[in-house]
């Protein structure tokens, strides 16, 4: 499991537009570099990121995607993404990263509604 850092506001009011910052530990190897021995390092990228919202009133498994990203070799190592979300109801956010070499990781964070 790679380390993922997700920053959310500590207190959220319904109707707020919150900023979400997500960072995951990953080399994002471009496939254009050589190792110290001179062999090409194989490409190893995170290709896709999605962020979904699961409302407390919605049925399980019906998460709504509100932000997704296709990433390429030009994204720096340990990909960092900052984006927003308009909170309309209480619920949780589901973060998913997937990529080369079968990489797939999901994180879940419950919104702290006041």
């Amino acid at each position, binding site marked *: 499991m790679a380390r993922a850092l997700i920053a959310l506001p500590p207190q959220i009011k319904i109707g707020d537009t919150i900023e979400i910052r997500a960072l995951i530990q990953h080399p994002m190897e471009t496939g254009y570099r050589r190792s110290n021995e001179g062999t090409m390092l194989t490409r190893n990228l995170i290709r896709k990121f999605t962020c979904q919202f699961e409302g407390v009133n919605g049925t399980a498994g019906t998460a709504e995607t509100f932000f997704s990203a296709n990433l390429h070799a030009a*994204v*720096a190592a340990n990909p960092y993404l900052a984006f927003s979300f308009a909170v309309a109801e209480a619920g949780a956010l589901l973060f998913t990263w997937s990529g080369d070499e079968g990489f797939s990781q999901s994180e879940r964070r419950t919104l702290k509604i006041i």
Partner: protein
Amino acid sequence: MKPRRQFIAQSSALTLALTLQPATLFAQNANDSLDTLVRAYVGKATPTEGRVKLDVAPLVDNGNSVPVEITVQSPMTATDHVIGIALFNEKNPQHNVAEFTLNHRTGRARVATRIRLSTSQKLVAVAKMNDGRCFTHTVDVLVTLAACIEE
């Protein structure tokens, strides 16, 4: 005599084709400018300057991690919102940097990330609206230490 002549004619044509092909391929890559990339992303729409802002430092010390921020002027309502933002570069080995998909639930048309830059070059951000309009912003950046150089 005829088959031999035919063979020579055919083989020389083949050699010519083989020598020409890499040259045309290369020419295509060189012409693969930012314009064509933007056009491929927006489809039939005509991209215009404005409404989208690509925020990046004009002078970059380290090309391995360059913070960029893309902001689009949009109310982000169900009837008027941004559906996609793309970022392209001019001179990295691959011209695509990232494509983001948004909808009105995103609330604010603002995306930030960190990218790699191999050399001083142009960057272009493209925003696609739900009504089909497209906006671009092109920025020149100067890179002192390039990515992809050190092992």
